[in-house]
């Protein structure tokens, strides 16, 4: 029972981190109709900038400044890159962000090299917050949970309760009308893109010390983020939240319990073949849940797409 609780917390941390990325991505998607392939690259930039700043000014300044820089870069990419490519249509836009992701990875390797950076958890948070029957929960995890939830509540508040949020929401559905009312719609788009990438930056700053800061970190998370918003339903903030938590928990539980496929198959009445070594399907019998933990989200996505193509919370038209 205690192990379940520990796993629930671990899964929550992973899920909320994933949510911070997918929230920005889904916001940008519902705004421009384009999936920003380079989203995870901005997450990586967040971690690298934060590392560089934390050397000189400490972790907290990094947490404050790095997302700002990432957001400004994101806004610049929208203004000078995406807006230009927009005239050619959606597919070139997607290809543009794909190329951007490649380029950012190369740039990061160019500046910081190929090795993992020694980006550390700050001293203040480097202690055990509490323990559940011998399994200690580090304070940094608690901090990650709190900061993610705070950002989610803040985002929800701005989007639904403030005037700015109203204008943004209106601009998503009726850009012409909003423009006619005297609002600068391209500026709004640029702002939302900047905020979305800044959110990815925040995720990078707080994930960098625990998941490692290395040039492949965008690649590791990149496709999982897409899987998340496809499962949740494209453009749905709540869907992104549910899917992130689902993926976080599924992978965490699959990793911590060593379930063998053989046992499952025996359990449903299929007996193990005698000469396993010769069988083409021998790998299906020997596989264990930690082995497939990382591909479970993809399997989930394919299943969702077959049975509910518009995702968990998406509407049919998306």
């Amino acid at each position, binding site marked *: 029972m205690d192990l379940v609780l520990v796993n629930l917390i671990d899964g929550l941390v992973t899920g909320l981190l994933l949510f911070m990325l997918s929230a920005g991505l889904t916001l940008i*998607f519902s705004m421009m*109709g*384009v*999936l920003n392939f380079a989203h995870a690259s901005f997450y990586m930039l967040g971690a690298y900038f934060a590392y560089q700043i934390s050397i000189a000014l400490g972790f907290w300044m990094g947490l404050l400044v790095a997302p700002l820089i990432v957001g400004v870069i994101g806004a610049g990419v929208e203004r000078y*890159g995406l807006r*230009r*490519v927009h005239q*050619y249509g*959606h*597919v*070139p836009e*997607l*290809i*543009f962000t*794909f*190329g*951007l992701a*490649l*380029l950012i990875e*190369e*740039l990061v390797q*160019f*500046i910081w*090299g190929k090795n993992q950076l020694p980006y550390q958890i700050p001293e203040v948070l480097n202690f055990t917050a509490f323990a559940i029957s011998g399994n200690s929960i580090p304070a940094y995890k608690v901090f990650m949970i709190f900061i993610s939830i705070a950002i989610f509540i803040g985002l929800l508040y701005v989007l639904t309760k403030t005037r700015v949020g109203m204008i943004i929401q209106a601009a998503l559905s009726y850009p012409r009308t909003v423009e006619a009312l005297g609002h600068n719609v391209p500026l709004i788009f640029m702002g939302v893109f900047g905020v979305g990438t800044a959110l990815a930056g925040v995720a990078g700053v707080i994930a960098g010390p625990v998941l490692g800061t290395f040039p492949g970190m965008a*690649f590791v998370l990149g*496709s999982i983020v*897409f*899987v998340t918003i*496809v499962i949740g339903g*494209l453009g749905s903030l709540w869907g992104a939240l549910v899917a992130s938590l689902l993926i976080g928990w599924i992978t965490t539980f699959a990793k911590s319990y060593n379930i063998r496929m053989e046992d499952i198959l025996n359990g449903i009445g299929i007996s193990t073949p005698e000469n396993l070594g010769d*069988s*083409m*399907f*021998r*790998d*299906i019998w020997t*596989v264990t849940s930690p*082995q*497939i933990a*990382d*591909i479970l989200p*993809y*399997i989930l*996505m*394919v299943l969702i*797409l*077959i049975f509910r*193509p518009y995702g968990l919370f998406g509407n049919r038209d*998306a």
Partner: protein
Amino acid sequence: MSNPMKENQITTDPTKPAQRMRAGGLRIAAMPWVIAGLFLLVMPFIFTDNSAITIMNQMAITIIFALAYNMLLGQGGMLSFGHAVYAGVGGFACMHVMSMTDFFALLPLPVLPLFGGLFGMGLAMIIGSFSTRSAGTVFAMISLGVGELIAACSVIIVAFFGGEEGVSGDRTYANPFFGVEFLHQIEVYYLIAFWLMLSALLMYLFSRTPIGRMANAVRDNPERAEFLGYSSRWVRFYSFIFSGFFAGIAGGLFAINYEIVTEENLNTASSGVILLVTFLGGVGFFFGPIIGAIAFTLLQTVLSLQTELWAFYAGVLFLATVMFFPGGLAGLLMMHVPAIRLGKASGLIVPYLKTLIPALIGILGLSALVEMTFHFRHASVGDEEMTVFWTTFDSHTVLPWAVAIAVTVVAFAIMRMMLPTLRTAWAEANTASSTSQGGAA
């Protein structure tokens, strides 16, 4: 909804009808193919070097794969981020056929890629049954997810994918084909060249069939295609499985050429490379991917010998293409057709030289700066010597930096000065002399 520019793309232009394929026009239509065939025959006599043949083999395989990819992206409007999977699975299937010694001993090697094609097609049928329901973003996402899934399976399903080290085999166990045992690179070259011609021709003919034409219609306006009575889903599905078939053939040829297939052949990076190749060449024209594959393979083999940063340059080139020349290299070439038709292309040569030479020098200067920065940051302590453009110098002194910066700035300044001349020349070359109509391409 309807965009006049896009409508022009669907409706067949009466001035250049598809009927050219028939009777009288057949000789003209066949000309490029005959030339290409002769070219492929002669190439090994010009570049006799073994490494050159290796590069050409690589190029030919990439061409088939890129053409197959363009069936989706260019002709069908489906952006796939996981197309390497079909080539990879085709390659793995061929590897397993190779290891079935009894069966393989009866089989002439040139037939082997067919197995790869059929396996690629079979997989495309399974995946396509649910992924071709929609095009655009959703299709792109599904292709990415499925690609990642299958690539990840390669580590788990060891029996088929061979785990980390992949699957290897020996092509010479096949039944000799008219006495040829495919021991030498050159024999493999002709095998690949044969398959290149065959599959390129088939893919071209496919693009001329009603279903290939409908793929274009579905790309541009699926709703309208539906009203014409075509199911856009089935049209996409057919394009998808044919593309899977030819990707599988490319994979099979890869297996024959390298005699090893690994996880690398189906991961996302390979899928990304083929997207890059195709888009660089240009998706709007059938021959675009061919140019892209040739250019990219040269870039990869030649540039990667010169610099560690070749992937960085490739990335910059790719982004520049997407932003400034969405038609790719083929689109850039085709822009000059109106000028040539008007007989005024020769007027462009001098302005082009005047702009492009400074631009080239500027780019070289810039890349020298990039190389020097890289060396300055990453060279081991004490290793201050570096070589750029056959000049060796100390990257920690001021002089080389000053020279590189000066060259870059001056070259780009000259290029900027020359740009208006080029623009006037361009407008002039694209204007018919009698009337003021014609306009830029």
